[in-house]
């Protein structure tokens, strides 16, 4: 994980964004993670062009229960390999959270994000500054700021190693 402050555009979603919306069933047979971003959010109303328009460094911003539904890791890969550095949501479904950590992909629990999205305090295309270490998010476009929770120790160790597989390899090598 890099220490510097990240800067990018926000793609804003609502509550209960399910795994079918993030990455649809019909592409599940795809096994190459790098080919997955082209299918991201294909069925999400108003975000059908996400895969075409997303730029490396952009952020996903969502409300509660992001990634509910299936256990598919495609829903993590399709964002990770699109170059999105972190998903910011008020809360994550259990399996999505684990899949993210296990793939060394940062997710941040951000307090009050669900209501802020509903109130229009953070919008599509807003310029954000994210300090992952401190869990601080600043919306440069309108001046609002948000605060996220730190990740627990075991999860942080796995994430720092680059994911569960890397973590196990390091442990096996006695690092």
């Amino acid at each position, binding site marked *: 994980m890099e220490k510097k402050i990240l800067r990018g555009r926000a793609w804003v979603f609502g509550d*209960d964004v*399910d795994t079918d919306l993030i990455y649809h069933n019909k592409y*599940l047979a795809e*096994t190459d993670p790098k080919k997955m971003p082209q299918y991201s959010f294909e069925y999400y109303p108003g975000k059908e062009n996400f895969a075409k328009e997303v730029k490396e460094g952009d952020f996903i911003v969502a409300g509660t229960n992001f990634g509910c539904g299936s256990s598919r890791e495609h829903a993590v890969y399709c964002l990770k390999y699109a170059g999105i550095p972190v998903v910011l949501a008020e809360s994550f*479904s*259990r*399996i999505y959270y684990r899949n993210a950590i296990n793939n060394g992909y940062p997710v941040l629990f951000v307090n009050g994000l669900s209501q802020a999205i509903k109130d229009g305090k953070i919008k599509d295309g807003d310029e954000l500054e994210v300090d992952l270490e401190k869990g601080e998010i600043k919306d440069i476009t309108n001046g609002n700021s948000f605060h996220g929770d730190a990740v627990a120790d075991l999860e942080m160790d796995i994430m720092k190693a680059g994911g569960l597989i890397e973590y196990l390899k390091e442990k096996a090598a006695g690092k």
Partner: protein
Amino acid sequence: MGKTFAEKVLGKAAGEPVSAGQVVIVEPHFCMSHDNAAPIWGTFEKIGVKKVWKPDHLVFILDHAIPAPTDKHAENHMKIRQVVKEQGIRYFYDVTSKGGVCHQIMCEEGFALPGLIVVGSDSHTCTYGAFGTFSTGIGRSEMAATWATGQIWFRVPESMKITVTGKFKKGVSAKDLILKIAGDIKADGADYMSIEFHGPAIEEMSLSERMTLCNMGIEVGAKNAVCPPDQKVLDFIKPIAKTDQWEAIWADDDAVYAKELHYDLGDLVPAVAKPHTVDNYAPIDEVKGTPIHQAFLGSCTNARIEDLRLAAGILKGKEVAVRTIVLPASWTVYRQALEEGLIEVFLDAGCVIVNPGCGPCMGNHEGILAPGETCISTANRNFKGRMGNKDSFIYLASPMTVAASALKGEISDPREVL
């Protein structure tokens, strides 16, 4: 202070008393994977371990896209057959008449056993809680890591106690209860939690009904969902258990819960979850008359012999008004439905019977919807596009409500045709 089911099972596996919030590393008993065993193998190879930790503890069940609808799927299946051979995987359910939907097979074949920890690379692994199993869905990387190390970490979950009393009224079943619960607590209402079902009404329910409840635990965010391992469970599992390592474990009476709910079955009515979320509850009166284009009786939620009997009871001697797809949850269920004459009832009524598998439920094949079409389904998810088309609509309901709706070509109240 007493312990919850999750605290007791995870504590036993960890070898020390544990409480909610603690992180434990445990060895799961069985690891189930379906068609995704192929990509999991790819990840496993990257770890650099040559052999899986215990080949007798891995269970592979092909169900997501069978028989293979595309060359990509066929290739994945081929890979899995190779791995089974090379690694000596003991339990493999290929595309044969011994197979079926993975969760149904896990329960029918004696892998879902009281007090065991079972993980599966599928979110509906929570189904096995119907047999007092601590079972939960995990991702592919995590499954690969478990194959390699035989270990997995869990945060001991907080628990939610749902006590159920009373009796179902005519036309109401376990599906209506779990849809009501989802409507009340919402899709994230039990995030990270262990749901325990308690009460006399649960004990009266069949194992099939308990499976319907536990199956949908994930739809409210739960890590696992579980019913008591009572005599009904023990009678069922004893002759078929794949191991004698199981133990009937249940929560202490004075266990501490993060949340407690109570439902009286007598208060329930036939219900649906409206598009596009499982918690979008509506009693049947609110949606009655909504035109449908397809009815689907299948999935790991509601396609057991008990479900088929209820639907056949409504369809017998009548004809469906819309295309109706019937998918028995396993070939054992299929065979029994044949013997009981249910398949004949469905055929006479104009239904199409498809092979056991996951196809229609997740829009893989066998029953994809066209734009603007509406389906009423006994499955567990009605996410936008779930059945293959983003401009279609899915209502979730019980087998009785689906059968009644199929007859009329619109969402209908099963109480009117019973």
